[in-house]
């Protein structure tokens, strides 16, 4: 017995507003993008004939094809860096650090920026990366370089540097969650059976945290693929990835082209998520 009866009509009525909201604001608009991407003809209306012309035009352009490759490569780089960094930090905080107050303090220092504006955090990188920026001044002062290095601002390096600071938490969080679930007895059992620490990690700890690693990779992948704001802030107009192309087409009133790129971006993301689901079952995480 509880305040809500199992399978009662009340449950339906309580779920209905949220369900309608999500369908109206997410499902229908996304399906509409898919539909619009097939519209042919000249006028922008639902009466348009459906064609593959928009896609043919996109895939006929070598620059755009190369852009898909660059975007995926960029995402893979970020996944690798954030994945390794995130795992190391999660492992240190959860396993290696024994001092509880210090652990809480470091955790807070790790998490708090997540609750502040990502846009502001991206902008905060700009004074760091410029030719007169903090990094260049430090390099000059230390005598590492004689002239300012120009590779930071308006470059993919600069974008990656900012995105690493934005998204490492996403790779780390799920691993922290999985590490917290491992019973200490498991490690002790393995140690009692004379497994060296390296083997305990490789054969016990890491496999148990694998679902967390995969979820973290998915989160980083999805966020980096769709993050046009950081690219725009730090890359200026010099660097564009797939997500920026959507905005460019949209601002140029080429709605069908924007829809095509959106569908391709969506397809990349779906493939990524499905591939990850084949490795781990997301539903098992809750239990």
């Amino acid at each position, binding site marked *: 017995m509880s305040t809500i009866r199992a399978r*009662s009509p009340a449950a339906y009525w309580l779920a209905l507003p949220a369900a309608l909201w*999500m369908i109206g604001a*997410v499902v229908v608009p*996304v399906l509409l*993008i898919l539909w619009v991407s097939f519209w042919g003809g000249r006028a922008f209306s639902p009466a348009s004939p459906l064609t593959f012309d928009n896609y043919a035009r996109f895939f006929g352009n070598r620059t755009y094809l190369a852009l898909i490759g660059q975007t995926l490569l960029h995402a893979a780089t970020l996944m690798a860096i954030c994945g390794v960094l995130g795992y190391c*930090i999660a492992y240190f905080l959860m396993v290696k650090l024994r001092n509880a107050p210090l652990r809480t303090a470091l955790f807070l220092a790790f998490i708090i920026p997540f609750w502040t504006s990502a846009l502001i955090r991206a902008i905060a990188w700009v004074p760091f990366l410029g030719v007169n920026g903090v990094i260049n001044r430090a390099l000059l002062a230390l005598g590492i370089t004689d002239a300012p290095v120009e590779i930071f601002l308006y470059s993919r390096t600069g974008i990656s540097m900012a995105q690493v600071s934005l998204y490492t938490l996403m790779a780390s969080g799920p691993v922290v969650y999985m590490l917290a679930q491992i019973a200490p007895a498991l490690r002790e059992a393995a140690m009692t059976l004379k497994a*060296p620490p390296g083997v305990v990690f490789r054969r016990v700890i890491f496999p148990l945290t694998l679902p967390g690693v995969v979820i973290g990779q998915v989160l980083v992948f999805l966020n980096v693929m769709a993050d046009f*704001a950081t690219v725009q802030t730090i890359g200026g107009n010099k660097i564009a990835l797939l997500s920026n192309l959507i905005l460019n087409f949209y601002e140029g009133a080429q*709605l069908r082209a924007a829809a095509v790129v959106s569908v391709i971006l969506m397809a990349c993301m779906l493939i990524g998520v499905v591939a990850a689901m084949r490795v781990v079952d997301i539903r098992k995480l809750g239990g």
Partner: protein
Amino acid sequence: MGWRTRSRLTSWLLGTLTIGFLLYQWMPIATLSLLSFSGPTGGTTFPMNGVSLHWYRELWEASIMSDFKPPLLRSALLALACSVTTTILAVTAAQAMRGRFRGHNAFFYLLLLGIMAPGLLVGFGVALTARLLGIEPAWDGTAFLVHVSWTLPFGFMTMLAIFNRFDARIEEAALTLGATRWVAFRRITLPIVLPGVIGAALFGFSLSYDEFARSLFTTGSDVTLPLAVMAQLDRQLTPELYAIGTATTVTSFVAILACTASLALIRRSMRRG
């Protein structure tokens, strides 16, 4: 080298890495705040040319072109509305999940979709929908609709997590003693899950307040704060932007602090009561 030494060595290595990353993560925020206090002749990078509140004053007495006050007001109102809506819908949706109605798994994935679907696509999709329906995008119309679809799933997950740890026997006791379901929910269930409700409200506020991608496509001509900031960045990077960035970040910190404090208060009053 014995495994004990090696273990200590990895500890030091990982510790250094963690501290290094934390510095890396905080340095830009700290620099931004520091530079926002630079003198009137200070630029967007070091040297600061003195210390002053000049850029904050500029921000306050801004001309119409770069006046951040109306966008700030819109962002705050929108975030407040999102917070209230998120809280109500998240509580009802999570309570519905406890009823295990037919299709509750699909319902869960529908809400999860709101977290997974990128703002860029959702925003663009809603812009297309509004265009086809002949609706003019506005910060208090389409943007509100889209913002809640982003904040609601976070509130919902928070409430689910709280209800997972909730001891239903307490409710049972109330019902056995003759309370109606509504009274038991209001007087027993709700006070116990209050920390989750506050968490949902915080998510609703801060995620909406900081949202950029979704707003970009759905806000129309009366922009919200992140859009105004981005527009100013496109025109010119000035220390004013640093001032507003610092102010926003401090606001976020205050919001987190307020929530943590209220959570602590609730826990204390519950222990006493």
